[in-house]
């Protein structure tokens, strides 16, 4: 592939006669086939981030009714494209790349059946284009599908066809990963997978569950849309749709946690403090995380309360428990690993002396913190059957998933892209100071945006998915104008967050196109954690983890306080329900 597709010198690393090279940063043995496809999927993801980011601007400037940029009809189209490009295309293209890293590259193997990677890529690309164009040029009676395409509202047939193509493409693109693991297993039947490969494997299974559910949903809905079947049921659609609608977000979660283990290790010196605990947490994800799709049906009429309680709690909070395990294990890995390198010092020295000017590191750490405090805590709270009544379809829900996806996953993936630019594309980052600043800028501004979204939803009952409601509801004197001061904070910070996203794109693209080439290991030496050999002999679990423990206690305290506050607000309401 590198020979005929060597665009702009981006696919021209030096490999040995067998097609392998050794990464100077990770020490991994990387085969040309895997590396080139990681680059291809990664670059496409960045393009999707650009497209979705443009629509982020128009959407935010419409919801900030002080600006009121778009007409309602255009708003719903732009909102759709914002959602699909960022929540689906940016994420899933990069997740396929993560599978190829977590499988072939971590295991030091070539990517098998590259035709499947190529075919999957083409299908995903054509599907994504079909979705973008069919929505952008839709005409009545079709309506903008938004992310959910809730039947019986109708969207263009090409939209449903595009979704089906994209889903099939993603499954096909995952096949080389599965085959890699199968080959590894055949060759080394008694060897456990490295933790990152194991996390990628769990991610891939969760992904296939979600994708198969989505395939059933959208094939049936497509047939209904083109009048080949007459039957459509709104409750059936909702239950089926959310297998992929929320399932894709669980792919993001599992992939992101895997990336956390990967990047904290490579750039921070983290170690795995307990293989048993971390792997058990992934197994809990495997069994329980996809039950979280029920969170969307908690305020629905068509599912029983027993079904709702069981599923929304991921079966006794099995998956929330798993996330809390990772929340300890990853910072603890950093703490113990850095203490082992002799970079400890007091309770938090391992953290304060960490490489904070390295954007790969800071992006990863901010992702972990903000995902936990903003996205994770609110996800569990709004996922309680009763509290959900005060969150359902409000702007607070939008705040929740911007906490998980826009700061959590996107920030981790931005760090990963910077890492890939340096280690795989072998380019030094252009504008290094701007690059160091970018994660702080993005995490800070987007964090404020997320908080404002949540306050607006909870305190003013502000609905999501609407072009205007704060300053004006056409046809009535009533409005939610009391909420407009918070929007005067949200609007400017949304602009800053989009600016921070632009900085990311400028640095990444400039580095790829005009960045200095990495000529030897010394150019990437700053990516590797500093510190000496330490006292080596002690097992990692024997190192102090008191800093992590204190941070986790603060996290639990915030969790408990948020939980109690939400329940307090709920019990202030008039009585409802049996």
């Amino acid at each position, binding site marked *: 592939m590198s020979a005929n597709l060597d665009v702009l010198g981006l696919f021209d690393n030096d490999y040995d006669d067998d097609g392998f090279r050794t990464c100077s940063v990770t020490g991994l043995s990387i085969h040309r086939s895997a590396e080139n496809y990681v680059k291809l999927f990664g670059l496409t993801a960045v393009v999707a981030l650009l497209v979705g980011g443009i629509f982020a601007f128009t959407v935010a400037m419409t919801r900030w009714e002080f600006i009121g940029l778009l007409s309602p009809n255009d708003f719903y189209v732009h909102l759709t494209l914002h959602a699909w490009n960022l929540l689906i295309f940016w994420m899933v293209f990069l997740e396929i790349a993560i599978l190829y890293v977590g499988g072939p590259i971590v295991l030091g193997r070539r990517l098998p059946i590259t035709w499947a990677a190529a075919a999957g890529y083409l299908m995903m690309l054509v599907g994504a284009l079909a979705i973008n164009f069919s929505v952008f040029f839709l005409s009545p009676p079709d309506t903008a599908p938004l992310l959910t395409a809730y039947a019986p509202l109708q969207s263009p047939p090409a939209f449903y066809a595009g979704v089906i193509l994209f889903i099939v493409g993603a499954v096909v693109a995952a096949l080389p990963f599965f085959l890699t693991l199968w080959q590894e297993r055949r060759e080394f039947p008694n060897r456990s997978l490295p933790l990152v490969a194991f996390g990628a494997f769990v991610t891939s299974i969760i992904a296939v569950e979600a994708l198969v559910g989505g395939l059933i949903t959208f094939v049936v809905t497509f047939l209904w849309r083109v009048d080949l079947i007459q039957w459509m049921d709104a409750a059936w659609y909702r239950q089926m749709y959310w297998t992929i609608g929320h399932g894709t977000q669980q792919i993001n979660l599992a992939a992101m946690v895997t990336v956390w283990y990967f990047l904290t290790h490579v750039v921070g010196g983290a170690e795995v403090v307990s293989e048993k605990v971390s792997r058990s947490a992934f197994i809990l994800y495997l069994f329980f995380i996809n039950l979280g799709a029920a969170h969307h049906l908690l305020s629905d009429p068509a599912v029983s309360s027993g079904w709702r309680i069981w599923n929304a709690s991921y079966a006794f909070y099995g998956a929330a428990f798993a996330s809390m395990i990772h929340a300890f294990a990853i910072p603890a890995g950093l703490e113990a690993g850095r203490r082992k390198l002799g970079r400890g010092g007091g309770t938090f020295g391992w953290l304060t002396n960490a490489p904070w000017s390295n954007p790969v590191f800071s992006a990863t750490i901010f992702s972990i913190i903000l995902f936990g405090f903003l996205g994770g805590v609110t996800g569990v709270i709004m996922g309680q059957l*009763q509290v959900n009544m005060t969150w359902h379809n409000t702007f607070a829900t939008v705040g929740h998933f911007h906490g998980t996806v826009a700061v959590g996953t996107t920030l981790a993936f931005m760090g990963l892209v910077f890492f890939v630019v340096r280690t795989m594309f072998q380019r030094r980052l252009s504008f290094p100071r701007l690059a160091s600043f970018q994660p702080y800028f993005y995490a800070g501004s987007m964090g404020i945006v997320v908080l404002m979204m949540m306050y607006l939803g909870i305190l003013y009952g502000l609905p999501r998915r609407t072009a205007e409601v704060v300053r004006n509801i056409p046809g009535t004197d009533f409005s939610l104008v009391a909420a407009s001061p918070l929007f005067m904070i949200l609007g400017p910070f949304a602009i800053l967050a989009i600016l921070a996203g632009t900085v990311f794109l400028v640095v990444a693209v400039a580095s790829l196109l005009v960045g200095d080439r990495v000529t030897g290991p010394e150019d990437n030496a700053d990516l590797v954690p500093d510190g000496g050999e330490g006292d080596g002999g002690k097992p990692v679990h024997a190192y102090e983890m008191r800093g992590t423990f204190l941070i986790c206690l603060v996290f639990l305290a915030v969790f408990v306080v948020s939980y109690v506050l939400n329940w307090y607000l709920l019990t202030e309401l008039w009585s409802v329900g049996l």
Partner: protein
Amino acid sequence: MSSPLESPDDDWWGQSINRRESIWLGLAGAWSVLIFGWMSAFTRVGDQNPIGETIRVTASEYQEKMQSYKDAAGDRDGALVPDGTEVFIAAFRFNWDGTPVVLETGTEYDFHLSSYDVQHGFSIRPEHALSKQMNFQVLPGYEWVLPMTFDEPGTYHVICNEYCGNGHRTMHGTIEVVESL
């Protein structure tokens, strides 16, 4: 060196767990069980539960129910006054059938929620306290009967919070709650 990029030692399952990590596992596990227990118990002892009877219904059947409900209802300044404690609300593009309606505090009403066309969202709050709001999904084909008892008089505003088409933002209805009818 226990790297996440390398296969672990053969005895990785037997490795000890740091004491603080064990404590954290206990705390996280206890919290998980506690919040499950609270949510589950609240369905029995709490006053706010999104739980009601659900009836399969076609749009035309629901329209007939609405019509006979309206026929029996009284009128107060152009608003419906239900005859009894059944309250019918229907969402359609782009309005709320069955509003405006006048109700009283302290009486348990059975709210019937359904849609004549596509999915909608029933989002309700009193004008005097916007943070006191609750939200329910409204589906065509399903009639959801949710008991509600208001304890404060006031004008309650219903807006749609599920995207239902280009006129979505204009869907608005009112429920007037008075001390007694």
